[in-house]
């Protein structure tokens, strides 16, 4: 077993145990923090597929985070007010059933990622960053002006949505749910990194011409990765909205896109557990440093600077170099 694998197992076990201990000693706030970390980690795992594996620096991933959030908000809003959604002559009831909400969040994010990807992947470098940022701003201002769903004030959802067999309002239940989704996504990502598609994506980042010469279209490979990436971040958005029981245009903001990028860079670009390490450290710093000084972001900035300058592989880089996937 490689050093990285060992670290990953220890880290994920500790991540799972901390809230359980907090539950036993009745510290629900710690559980909420861990849940927040797990959800942000999920969003960053999504981005890492585009950014880390595919080299697509998307400054618009808040689009998918927000779409997931609003998918949850709108469905739950119609369910709690007992008003159907109307699409022309059709009416559709809202729902408070999480699996349906998740599927809607994933589906919408994937479709929007496909459209954004089709347009923005024709560019690269700075232009790609700017186009994805522009899409983010479009969604942000649209959500502000969409008064039917709260506009600038956002939407409050009174009761957390349902999952069969769980009382989702109990913090440890909801944490378990989010953590399980994170683990399943990590397993998917680990497989993806060892799959034909993962190899092609990895090469498309470095030498697109080589990928084309082997008979695969690098544009399509990147597009599929962008869609998968957006769908995962969308799912995280739905969970995040459920955690706060609140959705607002902030979820679409470019600051949030930047924050997800920071999580990835902090933890280690292209590393399996990088985004998870980044998200937990970020949430911990936000909480502890935020308690000490309200200017905690300055210190986060300093830490980020140190990591970018001295630990190019992020925090995971301190654990060890990227292992060779074969022997």
């Amino acid at each position, binding site marked *: 077993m490689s050093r990285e694998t060992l670290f990953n197992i220890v880290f994920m076990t500790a991540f799972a145990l901390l809230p359980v201990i907090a539950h036993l000693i009745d510290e629900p706030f710690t559980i909420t923090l861990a849940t927040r970390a797990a959800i942000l980690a999920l969003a960053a795992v999504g981005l890492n597929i585009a950014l880390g594996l595919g080299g697509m620096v998307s400054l618009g991933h808040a689009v998918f985070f927000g779409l997931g959030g609003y998918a949850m908000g709108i469905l739950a809003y119609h369910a709690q007010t007992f008003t159907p959604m109307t699409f022309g002559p059709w009416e559709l009831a809202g729902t408070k059933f999480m699996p349906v909400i998740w599927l809607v969040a994933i589906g919408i994010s994937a479709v929007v990622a496909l459209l954004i990807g089709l347009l923005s992947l024709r560019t690269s470098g700075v232009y790609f960053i700017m186009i994805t940022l522009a899409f983010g701003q479009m969604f942000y201002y649209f959500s502000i002006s969409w008064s039917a769903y709260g506009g600038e004030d956002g939407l409050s959802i009174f009761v957390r949505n349902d999952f069969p067999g769980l009382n989702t309002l109990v913090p440890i239940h909801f944490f378990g749910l989010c953590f399980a989704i994170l683990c399943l996504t990590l397993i998917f990502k680990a*497989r*993806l990194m*060892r*799959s*034909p*598609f*993962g*190899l*092609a994506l*990895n*090469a498309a980042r*470095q*030498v697109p*011409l*080589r*990928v*084309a*010469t*082997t*008979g*695969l*279209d690098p544009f399509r490979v990147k597009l599929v990765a962008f869609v998968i990436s957006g769908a995962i971040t969308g799912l995280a958005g739905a969970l995040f909205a459920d955690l706060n029981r609140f959705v607002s245009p902030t979820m679409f903001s470019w600051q949030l896109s930047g924050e997800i990028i920071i999580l990835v860079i902090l933890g280690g670009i292209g590393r399996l557990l990088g985004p998870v390490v980044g998200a937990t450290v970020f949430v911990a710093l936000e909480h502890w440093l935020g308690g000490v000084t309200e200017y905690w972001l300055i210190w986060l900035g300093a830490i980020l600077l140190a990591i970018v300058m001295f630990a190019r592989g992020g925090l995971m880089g301190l654990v060890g170099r990227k292992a*060779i*996937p*074969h*022997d």
Partner: protein
Amino acid sequence: MTSLGAALVLELHGVCKRFGSLVANDDVNLDLRPGEIHAIIGPNGAGKSTLIQQVSGALRPDAGRVDFLGDNVTDLSVPARSKLGLARTFQISQLAMEDTVLQNTLLGALVASGKPRSLWRDIYRDIELRSCAESALDRVGLLDHQTQPCASLSHGQRRQLEVAVALTRKPKAFLMDEPMAGLGSEGSAQMTRFLDGLRVEAPILLVEHDMDAVFALADRISVLVSGRIIASGAPDEIRADQKVQSAYLGETQ
């Protein structure tokens, strides 16, 4: 031309390409027969790279036609032509530097394996895929380096890896852009021996500056000057050709 009984692998008919007022290729006719090495030589700026890109699919000719295995492929993209069995090596190595030697070779083997799009199968445990990659590495003598990151290879080893990646495809034709570029005399001689044996597997369209290699290897040579083919024939004919001597070989002496 007499029928040889075997169909032509690659044919260019009247290919023209211009960039603004610059005529890069002017009415180029060329073909590649089974089992041969057909070399294209010409001074710098003669339009060799433009020609190669139109064969690979990266550029589309302004006029003319490219046929591969009897089918018109003029409108097909690089990946589509590659899938039909056209393997290419590059003048400047196009390799994933962060990846290992084996990973680079596996990438070449993916499409030939018929399952390049799976998100779930583990390529490193796929015995068929690995043996295809490993046998290609073995043939160019890089098997012992398979776990090495590509960035740590010497220039000569990278040239060999380029060829190994092309070999994984079990191609119908090779398109090689200066495989000897940057190799020393020893490496160049080694590559020449290797390509000599390769032609029986699939014919090679070879663009090369190394005249020793070209005259040692080629069954036919076409000379490209200012976008036009001024002579085409067996090495001895080319060597004796007056036009070629004045336009090209004379210069290098």
